[in-house]
Structures are given as C-alpha cells and as structure tokens.
C-alpha cells in the first residue's frame, strides 16, 4: 500500500517514514503542500497523511485541492496536526479530510485509522 506523507519537519519524516516502512507500507514524501498535491495526482497513493502546517501551501488548502481534483478526490486523507485546539477537527473535516490525528503520533492509533480507511490495503 502506497502512502503519501506530506510533512516538512525532518524528524517527523524520519520517524514516521521508517516506522511505516517497517510496518510494510511504501512511503512517499512531499515536503510542502504544493508538492503534496502534485505527487498525489502523479503517484496516486492509496492514502495521504497530510500535516496541516506546511510551507507554500498549507494542509487544508492542499487537501481541498486534492479533494477537488477528479484524479485524486477518491484518495483518503488523514490530517495530522500538533494543534490540539477545539475546532481543528471540524475545520479539517470541513476541508474534506477523512480523518484526523494529533501529534505526538501513536503508531497503533494511526494504523488503526489507516486500516479503517483502506481496509484491504495490502502490505508488502
């Protein structure tokens, strides 16, 4: 299963990419929102993990664009954010996200959400 991880923080990328790979996923990285949108349409991942605070184009906008484009609108998006304020969840959902998780991430929780969205996701 291909996951596109859109994130600009190096440590986060390092950590999650490694762990997702260990869990058997194929991981692609985009480091800003625009890149994320491009790669989403180019690579057609099975799922997108979208950090919300990104340079160039923020996560909400990127998500909207992905959900607006015919080529990518079917791809489930999980929003990831460090902000734990009320309303963020709603905001994310309003932008079209399929789910939402908060940092610091807990892998089991995240995997649960991933599998919920892509139930038959095959892992290598």
């Amino acid at each position: 299963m291909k996951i596109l991880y859109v994130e600009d923080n190096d440590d986060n990328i390092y950590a999650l990419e490694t762990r997702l790979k260990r869990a058997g996923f194929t991981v692609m990285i985009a480091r800003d929102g625009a890149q994320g949108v491009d790669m989403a349409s180019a690579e057609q991942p099975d799922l997108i993990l979208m950090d919300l605070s990104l340079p160039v184009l923020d996560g909400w906008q990127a998500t909207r664009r992905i959900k607006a484009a015919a080529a990518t609108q079917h791809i489930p998006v999980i929003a990831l954010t460090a902000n734990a304020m009320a309303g963020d969840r709603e905001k994310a959902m309003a932008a079209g996200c399929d789910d939402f998780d908060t940092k610091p991430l807990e892998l089991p929780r995240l995997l649960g959400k991933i599998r919920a969205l892509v139930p038959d996701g095959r892992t290598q």
Partner: protein
Amino acid sequence: MDADHRLGRRGESVKAGEPGIVTTASDRVRTARPRFGLLAKIILFLAAVLIPLGAITWTLSVETLKRSMTEEFTSKGAAIANSLASSGVDLIVTRDASTVQALVDQYVAISGVAYVMVYDHEQTLVAHTFSPRVPRGIIDKHLITGGVAQQVREIQYPDPVTGAEKHIIDVGVPMLGGHLGTVRVGMNKAIISAASAKAGSFLLLAFGGVAVVAVLAAVVFARRVTKPIAHLVSVAERVGQGDLSELVPVTARDEIGQLATTFNEAVVRLRSLVQTEADRDQLRALGEVGQAVSSTLDLETVLLTIITHAVRLSKADEGTIYEYDETAEVFVARANFGVSDTMVKYLHESRIRLGETSVGMCAVRRAPFQIPDMEQAEDDRLRNFLLSEGIRSVIAVPLLREDRVIGALVIRRKTAGEFPDSVVTLLHTFAGQSVLAIQNAQLFKEIQAKGEQLESASQLKSQFLANMSHELRTPLNAIISITEMLEEDARDLKREEEYEPLERVLRAARHLLALINDILDLSKIEAGKMDIHTESFAIAPLIEDVVQTVNPMSVKNGNQVVVNYPADIGMMRADQTRIRQALLNLASNANRFTERGTVAIDAKRAIEEGREWVTIAVTDTGIGLTPEQMGRLFQDFVQADASTTRKYGGTGLGLAISRRFCQMMGGDITVESEHGRGSTFTIRVPSETGVAQPVATARDGGRPRPSALMSAGSAILVIDDDQEVLDLTERFLTREGFPVVTARGGHQGLRLARELHPAAITLDVMMADLDGWTVLAAIKGDPELADIPVILMTIVDEKNRGYSLGATEYMVKPVDRGRLIHVLRDICGAVGRHALIVDDDDMMRRGIRLALLQDGWEVVEAENGLMALERLAEARPDIIVLDLLMPEMDGFEFLVEMRGRAEWRDIPVLVLTAKDLTAEDRSRLNSDVERVLQKGASELDELLQEIGRILPGSIERGRGQKSTGKTE
C-alpha cells in the same frame, strides 16, 4: 437689667449676682467696685469748688458786715460824740455837771453805746457813764489827743464785773476844737460781733443747705450718669466673657449716649467677626474632616476626627458615632470623644436597636432627633445611665446612604436645652462626612480583599509556573540523559545505524528544553518577577567566551568570526549572565542566518548624554531582513517568518528576551539590516547600570535619566522646586556618600520616582507646580512606589498630616542635616561600601580596585596624599586603603592632614605598605590607623578580610568566588 444697686458710701455701686444668659459656671463675675467712683469725684469736685467759694463768700460777707457795722458804729459813735459835744458845750461851759451827766446818760441808752466820757480841757473827766467807776483799763487807755479832729480808736479793757475783755470803738471828739474838752463815746463792738456771728452762722447754715442740695443733686446726676455707664460696664464684661447677646440701651443724646451707640456698633461688628471666626473654624474643621476622610483609610481615625470636631464645634461635651450592623440589627459605637471610660464600656455593651433611644429614633425617622432635657424623657436604663454621667441633653443625627441607615452621630451635653439650628445643620454635614468615611472604608476593604485575591492569584500563577517548569523539566531530563546514554552505548558498540535516530531525539529534546526555559523567562519578565543581578565584570573575557561558544556553529556554516574592541574596554556593571545571554543570542543568530560569510563583533565604550555606555555590535553578511520582517522582529515567537524557525533553528524567543533584559538594565537592542546583504544587531547598555549618576544634565530643567532598575534602589531622589535647595541638598548628601538624583518640581519628581524607584525620597511640600501633599498622596497611592520611604521637608509644621498621609519622616526647614543623614542612613540601611585607595603604584591600585569592585564596592583612587585629600573633599569614603610611600604627600602627612579635619577624623584607614616600619613609624600611625598590612603575597585576601573586620557586613564574598547571580 435687673441688677440691684445699693448705694454704699461715697457712691460706690455694688451689684448683686447677675442673672442673664445661660453660660458656663465661670461666667459669674462681680463687677469691680470702682474705688473712686464718679459720685465721689463729683462730690469732691463740688467740695473743692464750693468749700473755698463758700469760705471766701462767708468770710467776705462777715467781714463786710463787720466792717460796715463798725463804720456805722463808728459814725454813730462819732455822731453821738459830736452831738454830745455840740450840745454839751454849753453845759460844760456852765459847768453843769449833773446836766452833763444827765445828757450823757441819755446817750448811753442808745444801743451800741458802751460808755460816754466827757473831759474838760484839762483832761479831767467831767462825766462818764460807768458805774460805779471808770474801769482801770480805760483810764490807762485814755489817751489825750491834742488834735482837733475826731479820733477813733479801738480799745479793749477788762470788764470790771465779768473780767471779760470788752472791745470798744472809742470815738473822741473835741469840743470847740479841744478848748473846751473832749467827748469820748465808746461803741460796744460786741454787738457787731454778735451781729456778724449771727449773720455768719446764718450764712453757714445757708451754705450748708446749699451744699446738701448740691450733694443731692450730685448724687442724682451721678446716678444718671453712672447708671448707663455701669450698664455699659456690665455689658462690656459680658462681651469680654464672650457673650455678645446684649446691647446697651441708648437713653441720652449726650456723650454717654454717643458712647453707648459706639459701643453697640463695636459689639455688632464683633458679633459679625465672631461669626466669621466661627464660620472659619467650622470651615476649617470641615476641611480637616474632609481631609481626614480622604487621606486616611483607617475608619476609626476618620470617625474620631469627625466626632471630635463635631463635639467641639457644637460646643457640646461628648459625642459618639455609631455604625449600624444590618445583620445583627444593632448600632455599634465606633468612635467616641469626651466620653468617660464607664460610658465607653456601657455603650460597647449596650445593644441599641432601631427605635430605641435617640439613636434608634433618628434612624427610624431618618431625621435628627433630640432630647433637650433628659430628666423629662422616658425613664429607661440608658436615660438613667446618661443622667448619672451628667448628661442632660442629647441630639442624634442619622447616617444615611440612599435612604439606608448605616449609622448615627450623637452629641451629648451636660446642660439642658434645645440644640440650635446651626448645630443641627453642622451635624448634618458631619453626618455626611461620616457616611463617606464609612463608605470609603468599606470600599477599601473590598479593594484590599480584591487585591489579596489578585495577589494570591498571582502567587498561584507564579507557583504554577515554577511547578510547571519543574514538571516539564523532569521528564525532559530523563529523555535527554537516557538518550545520551543510548547514544554512548551505540558508539561504544559501534552500532552506527542508531546514531542518527538518537541524535535526532537528543536534538529535539534539547530544543524543547530551550523552549521551556525561554517561555519561563518570558513569563517571569511579563510578571515583573525577573531580577537583575548587577555586578562588575570584564567585558573582553565575556566576548571571547561567547565567540568560543558559537564556534561550532560558525564552523558549520563556514563563517569567519572577527572580534574587535579596544584593549582598555575594561569593566562594566550589569547583569553578566543576561549580557552574555543576549550576546550569545545575537552571535548565534548571526551565524545561523549567514553562510560562508563574516560575523563581526565590535565593542566599545562611549559617553553620550552625560553617561557612559557600552555598545556591542554584531554584524553579519547573512540573509538580512526586510523592513516588514524587522517590524515583527522582536515579537515573541516570531522569527522573521515562521519557516525560518524550522530552517534555522532557534526558539524564536531569544531576541525578545534579550531585548527585555537590556531594557531592564537601562539600554536596548537595535537592528539595522538590508535584505540579502546582512544585518547589524547592537546591544547598548549603560556601563554602570543600577546606579543613577549625579550628572550636570540634571540642572537644565532636568531631562529624565534613562531608567535604571530595582537596584537603582540605592539612590535618593530629592524633590524641590528651588534649584538652590536642590544643589545644596545634592552636594551634602553626595558628600555623605549617597547617590543623589534631583527633581525640580512635583511633576518631574513623580516621573523620576516611577522611573528610578529610588531608595528614599526627600520631598518639599511647598512647590509651585504640584504641591508636596499631592505628590505624597500620589506616591503612596501608586503600588509601585508606595513602599519608598518619603521624608517631607518643609517650612510648614503639619506633622500629623504628613504622617497620616504616609510620610516616613517629617522635617521642618531649616533641616537639621545631621538628622537627615541619620534618617537616610537608617532607610538605606547597610554599611556604606565606598573605598578610597591611595597608592602611587598603578598595579597595586588596580588590583585592590578589582577586588573591591567584584565585591560590589565603589572605588575612588588617588596617586598620592594631595590627590587623596581632594578625593576626600569630593565624597566621603567608608574606608581608606593607604600606602605610605608616595611622592608629593606621603601617607604620614596625609594622615595628619586628614585627622585634622573633624568630619574626616573617624574614617577608618587601613595602611597597606611595602615599607618596613620602624617603631617610630608605628607609633606615629598607631592612633590614626586601624591596621597596618604589609604588601606581600596574599595581601588582597587579607585586605578584604581586614576591611570586613573593620566594617562588619561590608564584604559580601571573598575574592575568587564568582557571583552566582539570580536566575529565577
């Protein structure tokens, strides 16, 4: 006027006791009896006039009578004699003796004739009327005249029968020219005497009658005069006693009437004067009350002031102010004046409810309620008690706030009677003030409670912060140290694939720690709880240290670091930690945002605006800032833009924190930049932070000094609007070792007080722009400044007012300087730490200076004795470290000079010398000097020890210990 008059002797008036207006007991006066009254004077006058007059008149009358009678008798006698002479001629010629005798006898019968004698020409007595014979006296006395004219003589002879002297007018008439003989007729003067005596006594009687009438008239007249005068006197007496109620009746149109009129006018004028005086007293009392109400929040004091004035102004004996407790529904006595201890106790224990006693009644009726006569009031315990205390009348005024009863004001008198309207009005006013006072007190309590709440909230917050920081750091510490441990293990076991993840973890953890620290710092700065710890330190080592610290980053970015400062950049006094922190921050940023460029650090000292500043500029050739970015630069958590934090690292807080600290030290961090070319960040701080220097600029109307901080706490702020006073005060305070800041006028004083937060303030009261009372109130009202002790200095003596407004000390000009110094020393506490080093050896001086500076002393140096004397004159050190061998004036001479001046005599001196002292030297020094130390190896430590011994408490730390400073 109903006084009885009783006429005493000589017209004295005595008045019985005067009835009249009810006044206090001391007013019963007896009119002084005039010692020499008007009546007496009149009588004396009359006597003086009438008696001589009478005497003269009487004498004249009597004499005149006598004389005329005598003349008459004389002429009568002469006539008789002549008649006899002529008619007797014949007879004599004929020698008819018996006829002659008969003739003569005829004449004797005529009244007044005492005798008749006829002589013939031979002087022989021919006939006479004596029987039986001529008295011897006559015979002796009969003188024969040879003349032809008649002769009148006054003779006297003893009566042969009675022996009494008879006084006779003897008229001798010659007959026929004397040829024939002489006739002598003796006229009895006794008749004259009798007649004149009779007339005299009659006159006397008449005069007596006149005198009596005169006296009576005098009495009547005097009475008419003295009566109004006496009335005037009694009224005047009353006026003298303060009773202006009566005027004198003007009964006559004469001078007395004028006097009475004028007197009345005077009384009327006096009345209006007294009224004005009373009004003024009232106003003043009200003013004082108003002042008390607004100046002190101690309810008891205010109420006491009010009741005192109320009682006095209403001329009553005692009074009480009650506060109404709504919960318990009773009146509680809050302030008493003039009240006996028993009464106080009684009132304290009695529970007066609404409707009970005058207090309760006035509250119910919401209007003043009085009992003009206690004895006629209802019989109840309180009434009986009051009566037993001597109280006869009472008036109570309610204290109302918007129709709610909050208390009552009661005035009591020991005399009965209604209270005049003026008193009721007055009490009304006082009642209003009382309400205000009570309100204020309540408000104040609320404010205090709120303040305490805030305080505890703030404390909780601080506590929270402290706890949080602890809580946050603890797990972080675990993360960091364990990860480090894992990293070490990985290296030891050469498990290279683990290096990277562990490094990442460590980096993130350390970043978190930095963030926590910065947040904590900022919070503390915001809460005003950040302390600055001022110390002297060398600038150069600090710069070098920072350069070294950022070296790894410089290397990593390929930057060249260039450092530039003058060799004598020397020391500065500031918070070393914070300066270092700021510089490190700038240097890190410079390196962080520059790649393969140059980072230059330039430091220098400069004098600007009368102060010495240290500037450290960090210039880089990095990415620079746009104007927009510069604008946002110093905001918290904002680096030039959000992404740079991620790219370049850093917490984004450092600059804001660094700038805050520099500002707290009296300086700032400024920036110049060109986007793409590089930036220059400059730290600029006073070289001596924490001490406001007395500098010439204060004289030109006073530019405010740059803000110093909490450790400016050693300065004394002198506020006065007289420049001369400012100069003088500054001079003598400085000489005593106090750092002084002057402020000209109240406005500037307040401003500087807020900026500097001085250790103490001396405050003149009479100032033109803003008077001292207002300034004092402002200072005490400002929570930031309220704890600064204020010494009031003024011509006016209003100590109580000063103290009640919160002044620490109140000194009346001209100020006793010694006392001022004493007070200031008390306030500023500690031992002075100002030393004078006298030594011609540079190095020696520098060494000692550094040692002392590090300990927080202020140091002045002199190369020789002469210069030391000059330094002494400028400012008085707390201790002198003295070398002996010096040019110009050596230590010995200096000591002699110094000890010769009274004000320098007791400055302790520590001699530090290389000279080998002889016994003579030692004896020369002995009494003048605390101790002599030999220059040698460890003299600095020993020096400090000695100083610490001589001035206990003056040395804080030994040399060699670095100051830890406060970070929390």
